[in-house]
């Protein structure tokens, strides 16, 4: 259980230091990209000489990236919430199973969307068609998401086994 305490501390640290400040910063960035489009250079390495699409397209892409970042933060929040159930020694609570499924579903979605966004952005803003076949962060996110979904199924089976064991007299 000491490992759980360490994990919860690390997750809390990341939540306080990274996620909480990221929320207002991302909100500010969302508004700022529409006021000053130069800020888009932070997200995309745009070659303006070949950029044929209007700047609003880049802004929409940036907005989608921000939405993905928010979803990732929400996933982290759910994970933090799930750890609280582990601390209360309720690992087979319905909420844990639901949270794991939700995290998995969202992370896989973020991974797939980020991959598609990356390919389309490269095509539109740099005039290159690039697909990474190696280990990319998006691919890792998809794997992590699927792992969480499998974990949710495993917890469901474990919950039923525990229930059956508890009701065996």
């Amino acid at each position, binding site marked *: 259980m000491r490992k759980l305490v360490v994990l919860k501390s690390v997750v809390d640290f990341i939540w306080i230091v990274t996620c909480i400040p990221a929320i207002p910063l991302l909100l500010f960035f969302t508004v700022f990209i529409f006021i000053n489009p130069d800020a888009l250079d932070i997200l995309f390495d745009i070659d303006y000489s070949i950029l044929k699409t209007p700047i609003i397209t880049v802004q929409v892409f940036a907005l989608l990236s921000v939405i993905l970042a928010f979803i990732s933060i929400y996933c982290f929040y759910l994970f933090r919430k799930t750890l609280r159930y582990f601390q209360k020694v309720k690992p087979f609570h319905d909420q844990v199973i639901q949270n794991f499924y939700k995290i998995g579903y969202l992370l896989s979605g973020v991974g797939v969307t980020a991959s598609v966004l990356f390919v389309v952005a490269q095509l539109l803003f740099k005039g290159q068609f690039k697909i990474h076949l190696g280990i990319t962060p998006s691919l890792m996110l998809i794997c992590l998401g699927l792992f969480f979904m499998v974990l949710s199924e495993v917890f469901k089976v474990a919950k039923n086994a525990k229930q059956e064991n508890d*009701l*065996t*007299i």
Partner: protein
Amino acid sequence: MSIIVNLDIMLAKRGMKSNELAERVGITTANLSILKTGKAKAIRFSTLEAICKALECQPSDILEYVED
């Protein structure tokens, strides 16, 4: 479930209280209540043996199959 536990009937026939049976069998009254109300998913042979011994009866006196 189509398996009915007739523990109440046997207890009444023997004039025994639930607490006493639970104590003799070595299970908690909460678990005995689960058994009596039919919420139990399974029963161990050792528990069944202990109940039969305490109530001086056969397993068929306690368990009954009724078609749904």
